[in-house]
């Protein structure tokens, strides 16, 4: 157990972390990510159902993602400007990680996820696993990351992390045929797109619901500040 002095240092570290958690106080972080996942699933669904020769297939990645990212960027900005800042205050985050030096933490996580994905695809190719198992593993990694970053700070979000983990296990039990038989290239298994479409839909919906609940709770528990000088 920590001594009272060590507990004081822990408290200081927790206070330093609070501005970072403030970014999702209104649920916009989860709503944005959920919207991205659902948008991705929609683009995937359109691409599966349109003919191969369609002009959509040439431009969907660029146009679709550009539209998604733009909508999320400006949507979240508008919510912050008109709802969050007048209620609980304005915060401008430090740009150090983007402007100076290399973000080693982010690069390490990206490399780790990439390596896991590669190993997963290799295992699927050797036919021990179905695509749904790989998608389920991706879900478990996502649930663990969610628990670490978000549920640690907001207690009821542990329930969301648990739902994510349970859904990941259910996903692994689904029959491979259910997720369709389509893929971008011969490098990936046949039902690759279908499996990811299902995964993105599932986690996108969970994140949108969780973010939506946070947003409603935020509105209920805060009031716009009075328009007087500080």
């Amino acid at each position, binding site marked *: 157990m920590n*001594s009272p*002095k*060590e507990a*004081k*240092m822990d408290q*200081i570290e927790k*206070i*330093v*972390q*609070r*501005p*970072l958690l*403030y970014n999702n106080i209104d649920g916009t972080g989860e709503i944005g990510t959920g919207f991205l996942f659902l948008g991705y699933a929609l683009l995937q669904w359109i691409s599966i159902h349109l003919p191969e020769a369609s002009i959509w297939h040439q431009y969907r990645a660029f146009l679709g993602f550009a539209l998604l990212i733009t909508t999320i960027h400006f949507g979240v900005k508008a919510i912050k400007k008109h709802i969050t*800042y*007048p209620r*609980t*205050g*304005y*915060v*401008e*985050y*430090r*740009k150090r990680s983007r402007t100076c030096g290399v973000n080693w933490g982010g690069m390490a996580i990206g490399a780790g996820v990439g390596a896991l994905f590669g190993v997963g695809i290799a295992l699927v190719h050797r036919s021990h696993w179905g695509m749904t198992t790989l998608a389920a593993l991706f879900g478990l990694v996502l649930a663990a990351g969610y628990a670490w970053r978000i549920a640690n700070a907001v207690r009821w979000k542990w329930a969301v992390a648990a739902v994510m983990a349970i859904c990941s296990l259910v996903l692994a039990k689904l029959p491979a045929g259910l997720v369709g038989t389509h893929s971008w290239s011969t490098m990936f298994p046949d039902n690759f797109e279908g499996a990811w479409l299902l995964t993105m839909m599932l986690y996108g919906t969970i994140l949108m619901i969780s973010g939506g609940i946070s947003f409603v709770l935020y509105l209920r528990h805060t009031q716009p*500040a009075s*328009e*007087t*000088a*500080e």
Partner: protein
Amino acid sequence: MNLKTRRIAEIDRVIHEPGRLMIVALLSAVEQADFLYLQHETEMNKGTLSSHLSRLEEAGYVEVVKTYRGKIPQTLLSLTAEGRQAFAQYRRRMKEAL
């Protein structure tokens, strides 16, 4: 005086006060924040928060900029380079002293 006692004696008293420590810790993680944000996070009333901010401004640790958000007055606060250095040193000294 032994080393540990000397370390404790060297701790910056401006930052060590709990209210001001909270303000400096919050500002250390951001580029700038407004008065309302600090009030929400610290749960201090306007008078207490203003008095702590004045003390930090006097010490040269916090920069205060009065501006407007639309027609509403807004007070933006940020740690100065000196303030960041003082907080980093405070954390280091506290760890050494514990």
